[in-house]
């Protein structure tokens, strides 16, 4: 009698195992009953991330070249050329800012990761000015995250130092003009060195590590890239570019925290490019050209969530419309009619909900590191 029950139990266990082993024998490798995560990671690495870093490297080199020209001949023309190169590099940077992964992640930089060495604003101007005066600065230290990168260049190229009347004065008539030139050189050198290290890592070992990390653990590539993407959209695009300046996280608006504060008229352009970068990544659009590969969009469609894809893209587009009506200088917009800024923020926020809740739930990305029983 007991043996019968025992065998029945065995059969049940055997059933489960049998089902699974026969299925895997029949299906080709990669099977079409599971989403091709490999393809997603490959598309993301080869068509989006690496080309973006490469482009940034090209733009930073061009920036470096115009810097050398300017340092040799400190004319307004050369400063303008430097400014143009800075803007080109800044636009290219928008596509790279979300990839705090690989070598970029190892470098530290607290909450913002590698962004700390490229784009922390508002700038602490005193650090730059003192650095130029006495040569005491360490761009690697945590104290100087807010005194380097694109915001520092912004100030050096377009801002007024001490009691100067023109931006170029800090390099010519200012007593610390040599210091400013050094600071300028060092900031650009830091950016180039760092970006080169990220790019060579990607082109070297990291690409295969990244593509191989297809598991569903907190440290796998897919989970990391989902987290990085959401962090970028929520904290860097929505908050840093628009929410913080509009005063959503403080008692009053903080116009001095806008991106490209000293250049004045490109904050809207950069915000729109940032949004494009996010939407393109979501849709798997290649950095160069217009082809779309495996992406969050196709993954969601595989999981029968085309409704969510449509909603997310609609929300991105709505946010774009709300940003387009803003003044090209956010400082002006904040001071004349801040409600338009908060409306753009609210529009961006809707997509945060879809990404952070609906998309993450659909992917069931593993973020936990403790017991739970679904409450």
């Amino acid at each position, binding site marked *: *009698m*007991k043996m019968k*029950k*025992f065998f*029945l*139990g*065995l059969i*049940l*266990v055997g059933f*489960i*195992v049998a*089902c*699974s*082993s026969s*299925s*895997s024998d029949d*299906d080709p490798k990669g*099977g079409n*009953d*599971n*989403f091709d*995560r490999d393809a997603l990671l490959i598309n993301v690495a080869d068509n989006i991330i690496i080309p973006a870093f490469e482009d940034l490297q090209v733009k930073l080199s061009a920036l470096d070249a115009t810097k050398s020209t300017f340092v040799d001949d400190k004319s307004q023309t050369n400063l303008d050329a430097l400014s143009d190169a800075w803007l080109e590099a800044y636009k290219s940077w928008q596509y790279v800012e979300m990839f705090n992964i690989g070598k970029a992640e190892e470098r530290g930089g607290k909450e913002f990761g590698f962004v700390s060495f490229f784009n922390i604003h508002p700038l602490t101007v005193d650090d730059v000015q003192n650095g130029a005066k006495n040569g005491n600065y360490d761009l690697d230290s945590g104290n100087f995250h807010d005194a380097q990168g694109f915001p520092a260049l912004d100030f050096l190229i377009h801002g007024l130092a001490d009691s100067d009347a023109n931006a170029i004065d800090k390099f010519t008539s200012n007593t610390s003009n040599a210091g400013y030139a050094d600071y300028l050189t060092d900031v650009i050198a830091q950016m180039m060195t760092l970006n080169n290290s990220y790019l060579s890592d990607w082109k070297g070992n990291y690409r295969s590590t990244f593509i191989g990390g*297809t*598991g*569903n*653990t907190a440290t796998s590539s897919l989970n990391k890239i989902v987290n990085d993407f959401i962090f970028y959209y929520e904290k860097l695009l929505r908050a840093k570019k628009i*929410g913080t300046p509009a*005063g*959503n*996280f*403080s*008692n*009053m608006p903080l116009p001095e925290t806008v991106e490209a504060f000293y250049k004045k008229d490109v904050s809207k352009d950069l915000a729109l490019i940032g949004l494009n970068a996010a939407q393109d990544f979501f849709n798997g659009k290649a950095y160069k050209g217009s082809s779309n590969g495996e992406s969050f969009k196709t993954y969601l469609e595989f*999981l029968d969530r085309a*409704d*969510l894809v449509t*909603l997310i893209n609609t929300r991105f587009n709505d946010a774009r419309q709300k940003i387009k009506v803003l003044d090209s200088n956010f400082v002006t917009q904040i001071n004349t009619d801040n409600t338009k800024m908060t409306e753009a923020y609210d529009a961006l*926020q809707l997509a*945060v*909900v*879809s990404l*952070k*809740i*609906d998309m*993450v*739930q*659909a*992917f*069931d*990305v*593993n*973020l*936990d590191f*403790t*017991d*739970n*029983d*679904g*409450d």
Partner: protein
Amino acid sequence: MATFFYTMIFNLKTYLSKTTHAAPLAVFRMCFGIIMCFSIMRFWYHGWIETFYIQPKFHFSYYGFEWVKSLENYTYLLFLICGLASLFVALGFKYRMAIITFFLSFTYIELMDKTTYLNHYYFISLLSFLMIFLPANATFSLDNILKKKSYEYIPKWTTDSVKLLLGIVYFYAGLAKLNSDWLFRAQPLKIWLPSKYDLPLIGDTLMQQNWFHFAMSWSGALYDLSIPFLLSYKRTRVFAFILVVVFHVFTRVLFPIGMFPFIMIVSALIFFDANFHQKIIKILKRIFNSKTSFQSIEMCKTHFKKPVLIIIGLFFCIQLFVPFRYALYPNELFWTEEGYRFSWRVMLMEKMGIATFKIVNAKTGNFFYVDNKDFLTPLQEKQMSSQPDFILEYAHYLGDHFKSQGHKNIQVFVESYVALNGRLSQPFIDKNVDLYAEKESFKPKHWILPFKDDIKGL
């Protein structure tokens, strides 16, 4: 009518005077103590005492138990006491004191922060409370050696009460699964199973199949509803136990549910008859070379029989009713969660939320949003954003915090969205209600927005 009641009482009296062998309960006591001791050590080892009870600036409290505060660094002492108590329970050393200490210390740990509520922690609290009144040290315990006597038989209701508690847990868990999302949409398994794609063999194949999601949902419900009965009847017992092992090992592989599977597997042993347990005791005695012999009394005397029976009777009445209290509240249970906890609703839904709090100065209209990371741990934020009672408590904490910082005329609003079982996220809390002015109570919370869908069932 009168005869009916007299017959009932007579049957009850007859039942209460039945006896059974003391071995199953003793083995149960030993296993329970060992697993609990191991649980405590595991929790300590993972550094979770620090992460969950010491690091957070703020702890969510249970309604009515706000006085249970974190002990900061003394929490380690509490865990030490709890671990030692469980060890003594396993050994049957000063059993009554040990089990009471274990119950109090373990329950205190759980009451410190609602964030870490797990159904199986609640189960352990209940079980250890029940065990205070059971003669689990009647045999095979150090107390026997100390008192120089052991007992061979104990009242049958003592062993049966453990079986009843286990049965309630399983059966109610099964009842909870009788809802349209679980049975007809295969939710939430439809989300959880495909994400286990890195399991060998079945990850890429079986886990992705639609029919498999439904099969698992239905068999899960069937298992929960039938297993207490299959375990109770001798003819199906071995088969049932195999099912228990398979079910709990499978779920352990799939989900990060810690010690729960092992607790349930070992607890199921109590259904086996005395011979089985006597064999276990014999083997263990041989291993420990125990040659002690002492006066063996046949029947264990129960002190305070009437009050004990009344307490246990009340205990089970409460346990039978509590999971149904949700019916007293309006709106969808899965959405409002009013009456969700303490009901054996285990691994029942996938719910994710986002809650952005807005602090407004009522007079000037100035506002700012709060970054939850400044106040809550990731786990706390996750639990908070989908449970209204957490949201309310957190809103008050924020209000008090900013008041102490000098802000005036504080109002606290929340913009919150929740996605339930794969539906698109919907607004959760009315963003026009000042939560700082709302109070916690047992009344329904009118500021939870209605659920824009229908889930039928229990």
